[in-house]
């Protein structure tokens, strides 16, 4: 499945003060590949995700996107960020804008899309995530699952080459988790390159090409879902799986 590399991390290190959160991370995500990142709380999964989009700086190592290293700041960084969509645990929809305006905004501001063209495309994407009828509402009027689907549509509106998901369903009530996962499964089937931090093992088994297991800032295992779930190699992974699969 993995063709050429789209996202590549080499020897990435990051500290928060004395805390070494990312330790010599090497990770390659091929075009069209779906990589699920799992691991105990505090192992650095969010930091890894945010570093790929450079919402966090790293101290050493290189991160390249489609062969180009991430720029430091400014316009070049903004351009590269536009090519990677990000979906947050807490949705982060723009609270003062309608659902439609949320999806239209970045294409108009960043790609200078015309208003009616941006609106047409936004409605198309909202339809794709099953929310065409909610276009004129404000985020606070939607359920968590609906907000997260809008957030996915908003990220897709920039035609990203890859999508990062940081625990997209962790803040949701159980009955809403599936509607979001279904949208993500569809995206995966359509060939989107995805890095997904999640504890949804069902999603990992059904949609992921690889599972990356992190603990204490290191990548401990990086294997296919079948291998990982049936025969984890490390003690850490065995321990972790026994805990989360219990309930």
């Amino acid at each position, binding site marked *: 499945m993995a063709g050429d590399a789209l996202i590549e991390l080499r020897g990435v290190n990051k500290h928060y003060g004395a805390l070494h959160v990312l330790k010599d991370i090497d990770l390659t995500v091929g075009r069209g590949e779906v990589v699920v990142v799992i691991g105990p709380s505090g192992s650095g999964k969010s930091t890894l995700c945010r570093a790929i989009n450079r919402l966090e700086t790293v101290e050493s190592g290189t991160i390249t996107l489609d062969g180009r290293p991430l720029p430091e700041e400014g316009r070049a960084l903004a351009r590269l960020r536009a*090519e990677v969509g990000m979906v947050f645990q807490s949705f982060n929809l723009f609270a*003062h804008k309608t659902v439609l305006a949320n999806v239209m905004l970045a294409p108009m501001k960043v790609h200078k899309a015309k208003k009616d063209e941006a609106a047409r495309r936004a409605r198309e994407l909202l339809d794709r995530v099953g929310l065409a009828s909610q276009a004129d509402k404000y985020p606070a009027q939607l359920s968590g699952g609906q907000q997260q689907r809008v957030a996915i549509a908003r990220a897709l509106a920039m035609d990203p080459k890859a999508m990062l998901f940081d625990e997209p369903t962790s803040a949701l009530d159980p009955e809403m988790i599936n509607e979001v996962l279904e949208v993500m499964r569809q995206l995966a089937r359509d060939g989107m390159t995805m890095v997904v931090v999640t504890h949804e093992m069902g999603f990992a088994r059904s949609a992921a090409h690889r599972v990356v297991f992190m603990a204490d800032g290191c990548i401990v295992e990086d294997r296919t879902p079948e291998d990982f779930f049936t025969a984890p190699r490390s003690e850490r992974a065995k321990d972790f799986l026994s805990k989360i699969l219990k309930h």
Partner: protein
Amino acid sequence: MNVLLDNLSLYGQGLLGTVELTVYSSLLALVLGFLMAAFRVAPVGSLRAIGTVWVNVLRNTPLTLLFFAVVLGLPRFGLVLPFTLFAVLALGCYTSAFICEAVRSGINTVPTGQGEAARSLGMSFPQTLGDIVLPQAFRSVIPPIGSTLIALAKNSAIAGAFSVVELLGVYKPLSERGYSIIWTFVWIAVGYLLVTLTISALFHVLEKRYGVAR
């Protein structure tokens, strides 16, 4: 007793002077204040440093001292302006430090995820600030900006000591003409009330209009 009616034009000129000082200084303070607040949260270190120095120097300097610095200092560098303009500069810059801090604390009430979402979509810093953060911060900065501008209106009295025509300065010619000091000052106070209550009312309307939470 008839100090007001006898000297209506004097009071009028004074009031007009105070209104002018207040309006122009407010505009300068708002522009500089928002700009410095943007500097203080900018991703560029040197801009943040400029913003920090600006706020700390101006906020911690007595306003009278600032007036002296502007009125006596700037002409040394060959910048000779009408006194009113000097006064607007001093008042506007001084007040901008307080506006900046009001705006910055408003920015801090907006969840960081809002800005992160905008940046992750490829929006630049000015776009993120202007389209996402400031509109959401606006609601919470209206009341403190109102208070700051009311303080500005009252601070404008200092300009009277630097030969600028304004309301407080009206007492000098009037006491020379032998009017009761008390009534002179009562009408001056009424003049200031007019200005400050107008500002209050204006910000009350703004709050009503934009203060609704979504």
